[in-house]
């Protein structure tokens, strides 16, 4: 059972942070000292987050509009949109000021970063998620299915697995990146309530067998979009947690 929507609004208000308050000077000094493989791993994960967070922050308006008949739910979507915009700014800031990704603006840097992730990853965030949001904008009745993709699959599987992979990678680096680590921990803290919120919406919906099977399958497929950037063990863990989360949200499997 998940708590009521009011919990998330209060929680979000208490967890606000500013990406520009984080100090990145040590990160800027350490970045050139990363080994080639360390650079590839961390830059690949940063690339994924830049693409993912930019996409999700741009699509959330359709979800908020679809929830407009429920003031409490809409307020939570509004709070989440504020978080997602901050996450997008944070990862762009790191890519520009720490990783020195070329580009005069976020869009140009994002263009440069696409080569660091798989085509499946780009497709999920720049094709499938916007398509789902577009369908939702046209038909607000599809909110539960859209939340299933956004909160349960993208946030609960893809982004959560990536966040844990990044924190593990930072732990094992030959040099420290404390600013990136601090921001990642704050992003992960925000994502926990986003996933709880999505689970709360799913909990309230009557999810049938076909929808449950589709959610499981989407999670299993999505877990692999990071490619070599996360380990096979991490993928299996993400899928296992996905199934457990769906069950805890009240979805029954047959």
């Amino acid at each position, binding site marked *: 059972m998940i708590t009521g929507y009011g919990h998330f609004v209060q929680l979000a208000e208490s967890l606000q942070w500013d990406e520009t308050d984080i100090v990145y000077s040590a990160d800027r000094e350490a970045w050139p000292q990363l080994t080639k493989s360390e650079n590839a791993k961390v830059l690949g994960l940063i690339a994924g987050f830049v693409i993912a967070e930019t996409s999700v922050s741009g699509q959330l308006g359709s979800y908020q509009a679809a929830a407009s008949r429920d003031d409490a739910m809409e307020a939570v979507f509004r709070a989440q949109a504020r978080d997602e915009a901050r996450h997008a700014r944070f990862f762009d800031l790191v890519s520009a000021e720490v990783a020195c990704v070329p580009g005069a603006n976020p869009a140009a840097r994002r263009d440069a970063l696409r080569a660091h992730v798989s085509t499946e990853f780009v497709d999920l965030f720049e094709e499938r998620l916007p398509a789902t949001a577009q369908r939702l904008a046209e038909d607000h009745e599809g909110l539960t299915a859209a939340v299933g993709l956004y909160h349960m699959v993208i946030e609960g599987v893809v982004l*959560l697995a990536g966040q844990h992979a990044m924190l593990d990678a930072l732990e094992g680096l030959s040099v420290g990146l404390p600013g990136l680590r601090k921001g990642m921990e704050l992003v992960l803290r925000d*994502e*926990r309530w986003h996933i709880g919120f999505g689970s709360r919406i799913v909990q309230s919906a009557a999810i049938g067998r076909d929808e449950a099977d589709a959610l499981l399958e989407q999670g299993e497929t999505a877990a692999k979009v990071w490619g070599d950037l996360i380990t096979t063990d991490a993928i299996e863990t993400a899928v296992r947690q996905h199934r457990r989360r769906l069950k805890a949200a009240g979805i029954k499997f047959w």
Partner: protein
Amino acid sequence: MSVGGQTQTKPETTRWICVPCGFIYDPEEGDPDSGIGPGTPFEDIPDDWMCPICGATKADFRELEPGEFRRTEDAES
């Protein structure tokens, strides 16, 4: 239940909320997927148990006050 002409209500079991994600651990339900059977008090759950929704640890939970979250009404709000 009525005893001696007075209505007795079953005392509410202590439930715990995962502050980071809002999941509520109800001892009456347990968490069978993780081997935590129905009827297991939160205090008896192993320390390495994690929230089934967000993966937070036991330390991230706090005790719910009696009546703070009603099982049916709040769940539907």
